[in-house]
């Protein structure tokens, strides 16, 4: 993996530790030996495309699925063989699974009543939580009378009511429309910070993961591809898959040059980030994010400068995305994001020729996956 997990003090075991979890459904392997830890109070996202095993992994943590191999620990305690009711977590499902025949207050009280708490205590706790998620005024309503975002907050309040030590979120925002989703991202993150509750969220939305998580676990085909902070995942994707899945990235098929630190892309020879020894002649892939591509006069003096023709101009609000074709036989196509301010400096029309630079320290090197995909 190459990336060290944060050190956890020996005195305090991690809130959640997964050790070699594997799961099969008949002939299909959903998880192939996943190990990771979640520190206390941390917000971790399982990110990946559908079918990557992220939801299965969450359900194994919850005890809703049983793994074939591996150990689930919570605060050092092996809970692998415990039923869900003895694992002490709260969960919010994608559908929320609110009880439609119970009012908001009764939904939130559901887990408290089972604990035979006194009616007054239950009521106080319900009020406390509904205030926390700002829904006190809807106490006596039924779920069907609430908007999607409000339903989601009820589900959250219900999960938090019995004061669990772990909060599990299974794509909690994916059923909402874009605007509500944005505001709820911030609300949920703030709430998690305030309560300091260890949280695992499953999502396929990279933006959601980048904005909310302390650490992201990128998964693919039942394997963890990379674990790291959002900034690290974005700036230093450890594999082609992560590079493609998180953010946009220009990927240029290349061949390693005889000079270390150089590679040939079609007619060009480019200097790239120092990379672990590549053999001369080896097929590699170079990656650069669209916003790292430099254009305009300043590019003329930079490393790896070349000239390109503008093939498309897509205005996207805060920035403009340019489609570029490097001039020369077999020159690669590139995408470049220009901020509105930078756009004003250069004159851009389709068909124009532009000086372009690919800064060497932004050109990442990836070994192509064995199947060549």
């Amino acid at each position, binding site marked *: 993996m190459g990336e060290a997990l944060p050190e956890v003090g020996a005195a305090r075991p991690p809130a959640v530790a997964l050790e070699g979890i594997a799961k099969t459904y008949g002939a299909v392997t959903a998880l192939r*030996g996943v190990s990771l830890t979640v520190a206390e109070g941390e917000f971790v996202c399982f990110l990946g495309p559908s079918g990557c095993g992220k939801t299965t992994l969450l359900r194994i943590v919850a005890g809703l699925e049983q793994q074939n191999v591996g150990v689930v620990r919570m605060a050092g305690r092996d809970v692998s063989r415990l039923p869900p009711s003895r694992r002490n977590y*709260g969960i919010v499902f994608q559908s929320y699974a609110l009880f439609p025949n119970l009012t908001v207050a009764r939904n939130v009280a559901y887990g408290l009543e089972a604990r035979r708490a006194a009616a007054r205590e239950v009521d106080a706790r319900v009020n406390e939580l509904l205030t926390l998620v700002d829904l006190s005024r809807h106490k006596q309503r039924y779920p*069907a009378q609430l908007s999607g975002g409000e339903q989601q907050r009820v589900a959250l309040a219900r999960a938090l009511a019995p004061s669990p030590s772990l909060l599990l979120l299974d794509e909690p925002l994916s059923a909402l429309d874009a605007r509500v989703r944005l505001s709820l991202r911030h609300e949920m993150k703030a709430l998690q910070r305030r309560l300091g509750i260890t949280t695992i969220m499953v999502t396929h939305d990279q933006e959601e993961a980048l904005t909310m998580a302390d650490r992201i676990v990128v998964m693919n085909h039942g394997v963890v591809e990379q674990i790291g902070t959002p900034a690290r995942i974005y700036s230093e994707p450890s594999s082609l898959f992560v590079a493609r899945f998180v953010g946009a990235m220009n990927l240029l098929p290349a061949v390693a040059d005889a000079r270390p630190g150089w590679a040939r892309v079609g007619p060009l020879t480019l200097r790239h980030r120092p990379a672990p020894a590549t053999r001369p002649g080896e097929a590699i892939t170079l990656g650069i994010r669209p916003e790292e591509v430099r254009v305009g006069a300043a590019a003329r003096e930079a490393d790896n400068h070349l000239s390109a023709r503008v093939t498309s101009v897509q205005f996207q609000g805060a920035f403009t995305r340019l489609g570029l074709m490097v001039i020369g036989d077999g020159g690669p196509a590139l995408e470049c994001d220009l901020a509105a301010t930078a756009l004003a400096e250069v004159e851009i029309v389709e068909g124009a020729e532009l000086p372009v630079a690919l800064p060497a320290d932004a050109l990442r090197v990836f070994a192509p996956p064995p199947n060549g995909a």
Partner: protein
Amino acid sequence: MALVRADGTLAIPDRLVGRRLDAERVIGWILLAAFAAWLYVFLVWPMAQVLWRSLLDNDGRFIGAANYVRYFRTPAIAASITNSLTVSLITMVITVGLAFGYAYALTRTRMPGRGLFRMLATLPIFAPSLVSAIAFVYAFGNNGIVTRQTGINLGIYGAKGIVMAEVFYCFPHAMLILVAALTAADGRLYDAAAALGASRRKTFLTVTLPGVKYGLMSACFVVFTLVITDFGVPKVVGGKFSVMATEIYNQVIGQQNFTMGATVSVVLLVPALLACVVDRIVQRRQYALVSSSARPLEPGRSPWTQALMLGYCGLIASGIVGIYLIIVASSLVHRWPYNLTLTLKHYRFDSIGGYTAILNSLWVATLTAVAGTLITFAGAYLVEKCRTRANGLLYMLSLMPVSVPGMVLGLAYIFAFNAPGSVLNRLYGTLAILVVANLVHYFTVPFLTATTTLKQMDAEFENVSASLGVPFYRTFWRVTVPIALPSIVGISMYFFLNAMVTLSAVVFLVAPGTEMAAVAVLLLDDAGESAQATAMSVLIIGVGLLVRLVYWALLRGVTRRTQAWTMATSGGSGPA
């Protein structure tokens, strides 16, 4: 992770990490085991007895297939197979044809009085099948009122009469299925057909018919099964025309030849089972037919079509009402059709000692409704939620009863519970065995209704509860049951009404003291007390209609009170 990358071919064992036993899972297993035991004792084991007995002679010696050979070689008995198939197929074609037109008028036109027509067409459901046969005899029999008025004797004793009465009896079943199929139409297809300039005939042939083909097939199978397993109608108007169901009755009651009864039963199981299996496959396809993005179809407004359909439905509805009027009228006059002065004397039921039969029926129907609802709903819940390896088998077994003819089930219960030395022997001759027989006989449809209702609920309810430390049975009671209440009420009504009218499942099981109303109708008619038979029928129909009314009121109350949340969305107080 390095661990996996290095060992990509890591062998993952098939077995899961074991779960520590907890009380909840043990309770779930025990309940599931109880359900399985119930199915075994009252369905699997008795049916196995029928199969086994068909291979024995009357002294209990194993004789292999000899009974079957004798069955097929005795022309008088073997004829019952072709007879059964013939009347079933003819009835099927006529009923589905008539019901299709009727259902079409109810769903695809704006004909006035659609609600009333729909209600009138469902009337035959409230009477035992043989009541329609008695009514047809009163109308078209040798001394029937129509025969006497017109001087035309249709000669209804035989295949003709069976088909007539069965069409009447099966009509509502086919109609309801076709109404459901015709309601699920995608308006976009009709818009497309119109935009492409298709004629009405072409639209009907290329859009309407293909759209309801599974509904049509389903209606065909249901009618076919109803007719081939029905015993009441051929018993009353069949005369010398022997069908398989009456053949079982004759062998068992008439000749005390139980093994031949078992043999005919097994043969009768084949077409019924076949129709059922095909129907299941067809129904599974029906679901996928209408996509969720479908737009409801706006019924046509052509006044000619409406007038034509009104005439057609009026004719059928008046036929049904006419039959009912004959039943009521004949029970209220001295001697139909010779002495038409009014009297209530037939309602004293002198020849069968008064009201025991109808009171027994009421009691049995009530118990069947209560116990049946409990067992089907809880059973469906356990099969749906407590995932074990046995669930597939339990589900299959639960679908089986619908393909077991009532006569066969009754005979199976004789073998299973009237055997000396059997622990369950004491059930025999009690009302309890009648309740159980009804329960098993009518088990499948409510079980499927309950399963469908449960599948529509969020599958995570139990998981959320578990995470909150709430056991599943508490969530079952507080969430699942309240949400499913309309469907539960529907299930209990289905059990009650069927238990009131059924004849075939109980005819072998009644004993002195446990007479049933529908059986009384048969015995009274057999004994020539036709007026008392129709009087008893009127009581059965009356109870059925009354209960339907009570349920309707109850359902409205239930909906208003416990389903407040469903009203919430359509009500005035939307989200703030």
